[in-house]
């Protein structure tokens, strides 16, 4: 259901959630935001993938927790850093909803229909498309270098860092070469031949998209109003005692 929404309405929703997360820096409000995001992720059947990306983030979160607790000058340093970590999780989750449910092609189509030039939108979806290719290439390069005696997994830290050079230089060169040849082959197939390009699939903004957009903007406005003019109830400011 969430997958079928227009990417533009989902973008508005994600921006709303992210903005609201930035407005608050206490544990309870951020938990409320997270608690309203998780059902959306589950409804999009992306909970597992979200968990995996959160696991990737966990190192950074632990880092934030430790460093901020140590150097923070606030009254309850641990609570403060916990809130900071939660804020990061909320922002990440807001955009996860978007990126986990929008296909790269849909994204570039949405960008085009929002008035961004086709060339730029296309460049972005190409970049996404070539990430796995780059991964394969990196493995092939590692194989080729190991075959001539480069010991990639040996030596001290400095040596290991220096070992990246024989991998990264060919990777960059190969990518530049490929970019040039893709450009040539696209031009020879008529890329950019006409100014008013037509599209096979156009995005349509339907009722549910309008509903989501209006709802998101409504919530955002209420939150901004509340943030600027209303005092937060005491229970929302609750902190851990350390």
């Amino acid at each position, binding site marked *: 259901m969430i997958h079928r929404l227009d990417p533009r309405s989902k973008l508005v929703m994600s921006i709303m959630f992210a903005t609201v997360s930035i407005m608050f820096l206490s544990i309870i409000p951020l938990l409320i935001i997270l608690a309203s995001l998780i059902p959306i992720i589950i409804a999009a059947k992306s909970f597992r993938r979200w968990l995996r990306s959160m696991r990737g983030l966990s190192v950074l979160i632990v880092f934030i927790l430790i460093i901020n607790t140590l150097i923070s000058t606030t009254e309850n340093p641990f609570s403060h850093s916990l809130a900071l970590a939660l804020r990061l999780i909320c922002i990440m989750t807001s955009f996860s909803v978007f990126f986990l449910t929008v296909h790269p092609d849909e994204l570039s189509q949405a960008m085009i229909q929002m008035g961004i030039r086709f060339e730029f939108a296309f460049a972005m979806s190409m970049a996404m498309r070539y990430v796995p290719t780059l991964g394969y*290439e990196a493995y*092939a*390069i590692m*194989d*080729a*270098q*190991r*075959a*001539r*005696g*480069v*010991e990639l997994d*040996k030596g001290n830290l400095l040596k290991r860092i220096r070992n990246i*050079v*024989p991998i990264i*230089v*060919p990777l960059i*060169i*190969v990518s530049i*070469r490929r970019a040039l040849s893709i450009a040539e082959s696209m031009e020879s197939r008529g890329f950019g031949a006409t100014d008013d390009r037509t599209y096979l699939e156009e995005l349509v903004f339907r009722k549910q998209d309008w509903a989501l957009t209006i709802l998101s903007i409504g919530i955002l406005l209420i939150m901004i109003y509340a943030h600027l003019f209303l005092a937060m109830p005491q229970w929302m400011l609750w902190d851990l005692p350390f």
Partner: protein
Amino acid sequence: MIILDNVHYSYDGIYTALRGVSLQIDAGELVAIMGNNGAGKTTLIKHFNGLLRPQKGHVFIKGQDTAKMSVAEISRIVGLVFQNPDHQLFLESCRKEVEFSLKSLGYPSNEITERCNTTLERLGLADLAERSPFTLSGGERKRVALASVLATGPQVLALDEPTIGQDARQKERLAEMLFEMNREGRTVIVVTHDIEFVINYFPRTIAMSDGRIIADGPTTSVLSNDDVIQKCSLTYPQMTQAVRALSEMFDGVSVRQTSVNDIVETIIKIVGGR
């Protein structure tokens, strides 16, 4: 030198590249591996220096199981050159590129200069030694990549598609060089689709299809087998085509011959000359 015993390998457990490959290559052999695209040739040679370890079966290099050796250890014995030279080249001159391989294998500095010079000379790269590999043509880059492995003088040399992008003169030069290395007692293994190259220079051919070895033996007999030619999606070399055409028209022409000299002899015999 190299013994494979019932080697199986599949990528990610989904795509099976090798289904029980057994072979033996002795020291000092000159072997060509042929096969259609996706037959498992590259996967096979990656087992020769331990980049891939068999999921079932064993690979022995000089009697040692590769499962117990590191790639760096094996690469002193087996030099592997891949198809795409751009995957190896990263330094600012061809000379440095060749020196780098020698340095990583720990050669003394006077030997490095000497080996570097002879290899560059042998591959016709002496004039390009100070040029950046990235400004060279595809064929030239390919030779630089070759040089960087050849210079280390491995006992076994395995090349993946070395003839791509090389003109006839360079192919001949490459063959000469491989012969020379072979005469020094080194084993040379080449993966290629270039049937004329194989017929002209390689006494033994291993034909692969669908992850299996379908024929292994003297090049002339392997490559005159219809089944092999079809399964490896090859076309008969011109000499074989010529000899077949001749045998259809005249009696007593053996279809097994592939060398130009043999065929000249045959034709002379047919026209009753000499």
